[in-house]
């Protein structure tokens, strides 16, 4: 079983320096691309690999790049932005890649920039990732020194003097900055409110210029696709979605952590093999398979393959691939309340349903937890899960926030009802 993404990551996560990276095959893909592939060929290769975005939405990466206007008439400059604002609750997989192998990300970023012919790139990093910041700064400096960044990269006549400047930007810290257009506004120094689409960032992104925003893990896949070809990448997985994925698990499992596994690994294997199963004395009750903004799956779904299509069929989303496990001694209402408080707090305040609806939901859940629930509360919550659905709100924050709530109401309804009937939280003493 191959694990290209974590191949060079040491157990202590201390990254290799650029010499060691090069010895381990780093920047080979960049050399290959810049000396023998046109930008269109790079995009085409990624397209054929079926690489899908690893940030949560799973949008195909190659097609996304192909929407960028190319050729001499295209607006200049173009931008490549790395979304390293990993703030989804329960998600910490990009952190591993950022801290453990920053050169892999930088190489992928340069390749993506070459494919869309971007002149400037920004890594938009979560504020709290201090270690990653330190390591990225060092790695970027090394890459500049080695001639992988800056002007006339690798001095290649074939790539006609490709120039690319890469900057690290550390976020001031809001969940909204992880939404790609909120991120762009934040990067411009504006409030991190999302933008309406169309126009898409590929047409009007950073400072109104053509821009691609890709997740850390997505870009980290790219050097391996260029090195080994799309067919190799596709065969890494168990299913039709190409490649491996950094999966994770948190909650009351024996070994919370992260593992690079083929896409299509089952939920059961993830939780009960890699994460070591439930801690003694705890029973599995459910799981948010891909971070806080995905629907609960339960016992009956444990054999679902963790890929974009299969998880969706089961009624949830692969999301970031980092599972939050709910056990039998944790109140599902309390868990959902904790999540909804987070989403209400992180709403940017731009659109009405999100700004006003989420605090109402959080207040209602809190009332349930405090034994002050009323009979109509569950209907109120259920109606919000519909009204805060996709398209009704300005961006995906509130619809994402509704996923754990709507599935909790479906799978743990009796628990919600007990809160109202018993006028208390049954999990509290």
């Amino acid at each position, binding site marked *: 079983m191959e694990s290209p993404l974590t191949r060079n990551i040491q157990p202590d996560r201390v990254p290799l320096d650029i010499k060691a990276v090069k010895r381990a095959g780093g920047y080979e893909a960049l050399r290959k691309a810049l000396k023998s592939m046109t930008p269109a060929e790079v995009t085409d290769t990624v397209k054929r690999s079926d690489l899908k975005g690893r940030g949560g939405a799973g949008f195909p990466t190659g097609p996304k790049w192909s929407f960028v206007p190319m050729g001499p008439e295209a*607006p200049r400059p173009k931008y490549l932005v790395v979304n390293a604002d990993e703030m989804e609750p329960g998600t910490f997989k990009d952190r591993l890649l950022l801290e453990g192998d920053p050169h892999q990300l930088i190489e992928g970023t340069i390749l993506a920039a070459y494919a869309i012919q971007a002149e400037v790139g920004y890594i938009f990093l979560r504020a709290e990732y201090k270690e990653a910041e330190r390591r990225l700064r060092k790695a970027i400096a090394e890459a500049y020194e080695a001639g992988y960044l800056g002007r006339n990269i690798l001095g290649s006549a074939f790539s006609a003097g490709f120039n690319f400047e890469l900057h690290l930007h550390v976020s001031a810290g*809001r969940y909204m900055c992880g939404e790609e257009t909120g991120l762009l506004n934040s990067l411009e120094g504006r*409030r991190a409110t999302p*933008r*309406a689409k*169309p*126009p898409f960032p590929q*047409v*009007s992104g950073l*400072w*109104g210029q053509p821009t691609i925003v890709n997740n850390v893990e997505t870009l980290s896949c790219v050097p391996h696709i260029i090195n080994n070809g799309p067919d190799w990448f596709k065969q890494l997985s168990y299913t039709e979605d190409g490649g491996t994925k950094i999966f994770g698990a948190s909650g009351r499992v024996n070994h919370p952590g992260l593992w690079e596994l083929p896409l299509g690994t089952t939920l059961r294997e993830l939780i009960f093999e890699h994460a070591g199963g439930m801690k003694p004395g705890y029973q599995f009750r459910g799981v948010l398979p891909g971070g806080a903004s995905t629907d609960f799956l339960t016992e009956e779904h444990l054999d679902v393959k963790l890929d974009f299509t299969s998880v969706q069929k089961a009624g949830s989303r692969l999301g970031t691939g980092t599972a939050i496990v709910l056990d039998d001694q944790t109140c599902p209402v309390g868990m959902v309340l904790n999540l909804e408080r987070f989403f*209400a*707090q*992180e*709403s*940017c*305040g*731009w*659109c*009405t*349903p999100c*700004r*006003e*609806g*989420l*605090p*109402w939901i959080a*207040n209602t859940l809190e*009332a349930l937890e405090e034994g002050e629930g*009323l009979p*109509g509360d569950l209907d*109120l919550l259920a*109606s919000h899960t519909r*009204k805060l659905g996709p*398209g*009704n*709100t*300005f961006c995906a924050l509130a619809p994402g926030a509704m996923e754990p709530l709507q599935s909790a109401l479906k799978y743990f309804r009796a628990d919600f009802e007990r809160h109202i009937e018993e006028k208390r939280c049954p999990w509290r003493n």
Partner: protein
Amino acid sequence: MMAKIFIDGKTYEVDPADNLLHVALSLGFDLPYFCWHPAMGSVGACRQCAVKQFKDENDTRGRLVMACMTPAAEGTRISIHDPEAAEFRASVIEWLMLNHPHDCPVCDEGGECHLQDMTVMTGHVYRRNRFKKRTYRNQYLGPFIHHEMNRCIQCYRCVRFYRDYAGGRDLDVFAAHDHVYFGRHEDGVLESEFSGNLVEVCPTGVFTDKTLQQHYTRKWDLQTAPSICAHCGLGCNTIPGERYGSLRRIVNRYHEEVNGYFLCDRGRYGYEFVNSPERIRQSRIKSAQPGELGIVPVEEVLSRLGEMLAPGTPLVGIGSPRASLEANFALRSLTGPENFFAGISANEARLHHRILNILREGPVPVASLREVERSDAVLVLGEDLTNTAPRLALALRQSVRNQPLERARQRNIDLWNDAALREIIQDEKGPLYILAPAGTRLDDVATSTTHLAPDDLARLGFAIAHLLDSAAPEVSGLPAELSSRAEEIAETLKAAKNPLIVSGTSLGSEAVIQAAASIAWALKAVNPDTRIVLTVPERNSLGLALLDNKDLDDAQEALERNPNAMLVILENDLYRRASTGSIDKLFDSAGQVVVIDSLENRTTAKADLVLPAATFAEGDGTLVNYEGRAQRYFQVLPPRDEIRESWRWIDELMRARHHELHGTWNDLDDVLRALSEQAPVFAPVLEIAPPEGFRLVEQKIPRQPHRYSGRTANRANITVHEPKPPDDPDAPLAFSMEGYKGQPPPSLIPRYWAPGWNSVQALNKFQAEVGGPLIGGSPGRRLIEPSAEARPSYPQDIPDAFVPREDEYLALPLYHIFGSEELSRLAPAIAERTPEVHAVLHPALAEKLAAADGQSIQIRLEGDTIRLPLRLDASLPEDLVGLPAGFPGIPANLPGWVKIELVSEEGA
């Protein structure tokens, strides 16, 4: 190309460039909204205008979309009445009302609140939320705006107007999630000259009119009428509101071509001069004691008039650019044209006639403010527009978007998609060159600014004209730096699609105006879409110029020719027109002096007889704005006490004089008819509003709304009998709540109000298309249409370069939106924003004079000497002195050479 769309199964032909909300409102549907504004486009924030969209005729499920963010593309199928869409819209209101205080009865917005209207429209009635409401701290924002943040529904309109549209910097959105805050970073006066529009832009009671609050009245209790702003020459349309004899507020009256949706703060808050204690309410005759005026019964005044005006007494009349066409014409009829004088200085009269000729003869047409907004390269020559013609500055601020917008068009971004447009445009601005004596409040959007003395400004202008057309005279000896600036400007103007040249009278320089015209003429040969704007200072400057071209010097001569002539002065403080000495001389040369005016001033103090005149609020009249557009304003309240419209007083003078016209003028229409017969240029004034006899279903149009309260109780403390409403002999409007309830013709709309739409946004129902003309067309008519074929010859008299003098400095008038205009400066809120009188020097000149910031200097101009504290401004050229135009004590005859002396500390 029109698109066919389907709304609830019916087919409509619409413009596919519009969004569905714009289309639905234009078609008359009641679709609620908050964040969208017709002048500011869509941002999709409030989610209030949700409708159900179907893919095709087979799609029965559909999905919710926001109408404001969805193009009205060919084949679009939507349902407004779809139950899911209706339920969602009610939910949006429910969410907005979670934290909105239930304080409508004590809220200034109550009764004209868009949030109230939309709440009723969606059917949300029952409060389910049982949790605490959020609260905020309110801010002090200055004398114009009251702040009540708890009422905020976070539609973001305030910051979008204040920052994005009006260029303000000190109002912003702070914090996040359900604690978003709209205000300043700390308490303080809002800086923007357009802050008052927040009152109308805010859909609820967060930003309300602070002056209204001082004498609060609900919209339904306000008596209102269509009016025209009295405080500059642009002619913005307004709706003043009155209760119990005092004026309570001004709101915008939409005019597609003129002010659109917005007013400046001088126009909105200047109204309180009408309520001023300085108002003249009684006739007064100079008593035995010299210099004292005694109030006497009107009957005695009229009989005294008979003596004063005995046949044979020569008569000299001085009119006013502040008075209506009718008043000026009446005086001119009384005295005869040969003895009627325009009441402005010789220089100002020359400027006005120059402007009139430029506009009348062509070939360059004047731009309406709407056209100004659409221009894509602008040169401003000699004007600080934010302070002389504020609404024009706001229009110019929009014009700089036009060139960058081309890029949005290229990328197929809908022009209503506001956030996307601003993203594409970023900080890019189309060309706007400002050539002025000092910095202006438009500099932040200017391509470049050049600060020169007036003659040098004119020379630079002539140089640009020469570069555009070599037939225009060459300017010799221009410094290289200015030559290259001229080249850049000429090239940019030449490359534009809709170039605009803006100048005006504020520097008192005919050469500056000539230079502006020369540029426009030269450009016109290259581009037929060239436009010009020449601003004039007062509400009827151009109307008066059309009527007469004789100035105060001519009046002086006439008085000298006719010793002991009786002088009749109409609504004019002559001391604001010329030096104190020359006006004193004028009075010395006159016999008896009759002054008809509304407010006490230095001129009324000279009068033997003062007759109380109506202001715009108490009288009807016609005004001609900077573009030659004649517009009618109507009484908001009947004149009280002895106040009468000026033309009616003049009719009394005619009676006393046994003038043949006396008795022929029974109402305003008679005056207008006589005017158009005497001067055919005014013929269209008869058509700009229906005559007095106009009726709809045999009824007049009521000035009072149908919910006007207390009609039978208002005077119950005096008598239980309800008095008959006052008659209005001049207009088809009634001082009553009875009358025609439907939509009147556009010139007679007394307020925007429609069933279900109680707020200012009821305007949608009065427009043929939202953001378009009013149903029935835009009111008013241009009196001047230039010939496109005219080929005027370029003026050859280019001034010499400005040469500083040894011991004297050229003093220029510097204008202040709050303080320079005669009437508005009497409004308390405006007075609070008016700076102290002062002199402005360049720091280097101050250093040369060994004067420090704040120190007092003494300035001598001809006979006048004034002592002023000093302010330093590095944007003013070193050899100039800036004086606040129109401020007390500041000489009227600026520009002029002054001597400056330092005032010793003991002396101060």
